[in-house]
């Protein structure tokens, strides 16, 4: 009995130590630098016109990315779970690819396709549509690197989902579309929210792909991470730290919000993380 408790304690401290060493320590170093600089300096750094513009652009493009993935990612997940078609396994495998390739390479791939020498890019340019080096290019890069989140968060929930409520709605006269949005989507909401929030916070911090694909012109096409890089390179670590903390704060708030949204009252863990089978699915009545 005693040895079991020792093992429990050891495991627990290992887990805590792991998280503390890998995440909390670097985080606290950043926090310390900010505290040394003081809150006045922080506000001053973050409200520099270039910094503010970079933060706004980052939030804007990350939100657009999130909305696109929330809609198209949900539809893709449903298709991948519910329908059988030739090549489905291949499509399913492709979804994870953005995690497997360096984001810098992802940027190069996008640039090669949408650049003026690329097939698609040349075609678009003839029609006066600028993707690369403009805002849509940034969104494209964000979409690429965050591709798996929504789909992968939804798939297991969709597989587990019981079909009866949908069938009931359908037989009661609801159109497939209405059934999908009023029955299916609310039932998988915790999974969807997890995917959506992770997409958002991951998009906020993206650097590698964007730096290749965006024009990086301050106050026009420069995102926060690229701004931070520029400040580090020009011997302004304080400005870099302040803007980093601003991004970090938004991410943190988003994750706290996610935790609150996906945790039913009285539960200790978010619904998604609870052991399968016990999870009560809320069905819109």
């Amino acid at each position: 009995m005693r040895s079991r408790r020792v093992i429990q304690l050891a495991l627990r401290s290992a887990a805590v130590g792991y998280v503390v060493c890998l995440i909390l320590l670097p985080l606290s170093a950043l926090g310390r630098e900010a505290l040394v600089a003081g809150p006045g300096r922080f506000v001053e750094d973050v409200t520099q016109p270039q910094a503010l513009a970079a933060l706004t652009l980052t939030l804007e493009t990350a939100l657009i990315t999130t909305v696109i993935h929330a809609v198209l990612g949900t539809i893709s997940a449903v298709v991948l779970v519910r329908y059988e078609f030739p090549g489905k396994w291949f499509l399913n495998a492709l979804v994870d690819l953005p995690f497997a390739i360096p984001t810098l390479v992802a940027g190069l791939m996008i640039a090669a396709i949408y650049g003026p020498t690329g097939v698609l890019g040349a075609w678009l340019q003839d029609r006066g549509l600028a993707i690369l080096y403009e805002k849509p290019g940034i969104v494209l890069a964000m979409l690429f690197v965050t591709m798996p989140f929504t789909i992968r968060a939804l798939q297991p929930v969709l597989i587990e989902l019981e079909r009866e409520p949908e069938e009931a709605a359908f037989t009661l006269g609801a159109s497939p579309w209405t059934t999908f949005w009023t029955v299916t989507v609310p039932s998988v909401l915790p999974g969807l929210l997890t995917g959506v929030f992770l997409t958002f916070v991951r998009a906020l911090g993206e650097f590698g792909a964007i730096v290749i694909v965006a024009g990086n012109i301050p106050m026009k096409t420069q995102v926060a991470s690229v701004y931070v890089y520029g400040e580090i390179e020009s011997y302004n670590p304080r400005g870099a730290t302040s803007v980093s903390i601003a991004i970090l704060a938004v991410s943190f708030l988003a994750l706290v919000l996610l935790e609150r949204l996906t945790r039913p009252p009285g539960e200790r863990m978010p619904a998604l993380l609870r052991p399968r089978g016990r999870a009560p699915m809320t069905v819109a009545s």
Partner: protein
Amino acid sequence: MKGRISLSRIAGRVSVGLLLLLLPAVPISAEDARELILAAYSVPKEAYERKIIPAFQRYWKQRTGQTVRVRSSYGASGAQARAILGGFEADVAALSLESDLDQIAKAGAISHDWRKGPHGGVITTSVVAFGTRKGNPKGIATWEDLARPGVEVLYPNPKTSGGAMWDIVAIYGAGLKLWAQQVGPGRSADGAAAEAYAAGLLKRIQRNVKVMDKSGRESVTTFERGIGDVIVTYENELLPRVWSGRPYEIIVPSETLLIENPVAVVDRHVDRHKVRDVAEAFVAFLHSDEAQAAFAELGFRPVNQAATVRARGAFPRPANLFTIADLGGWDAVRARLFGPQGLWTKTVEELARDG
């Protein structure tokens, strides 16, 4: 007695074995082998690796009988400076920007005045030039041509690229020169009006900038991907590419900035490693005809005139070449152009407001 013998025999065998293990790493005894750590910015890498370092090793062997091993590291100039500030124990720093050396000097690692060296501590020079598409279809010749509507211009971001700082300073300085020409000789130019003209030129050119890459190299890659009509960059970045048959034209505007790349011995590290003699000889060697010719082959303008002649053709000298010193030195220029209230910073903000 017997035990003692076998013990010493074992010790002997072990030490022979250890020596054998060490042999590949240290070919000669420690007194004859010297080691020099070079931190350089990446553009002249080929000149160092293929020509200059082997030549210096031969030279030093001949002079002293010692073998020098040069451990060299190449990277962006600013990154190298930051690495040295962060504890990278380089003996010699060969960077692209004076201000990067000054950062190391400010931290106390370089304690001598490196500007007192031969050629003012500068080992290579170049000029800010334009690269255009084959045949120069947009007819680019002067800075004003870069400001024309419909001309797409590339240069990197001055926050991340020393090269871009040279480019933007060149625009500003050229603006001052062009204004002086418009006013005409004899009349002393009105400082505020010249300043306003230079600021206007910078704004009109910056408006045409489509992409600002992290570095000069990346900017060239973007240009090769088919973006932009003109790239503003170092002449030495364009020359080797044209020599190797890439379809560009190089245009050196008559008003342009002389780019100077400095080198310095890092006092703190050479004293710690006891290699001051080697490091100082290496820096002196960089000014030799042989080293200068190697730089010239990469498209740099040598500081040593004898080497210029040996280089591929003479470099055309722009009519109105100016230097950073003419504009008041890097500290002044950096504050005036790139500080929080600097001209370039304000220009970018104004352009964003104008939409």
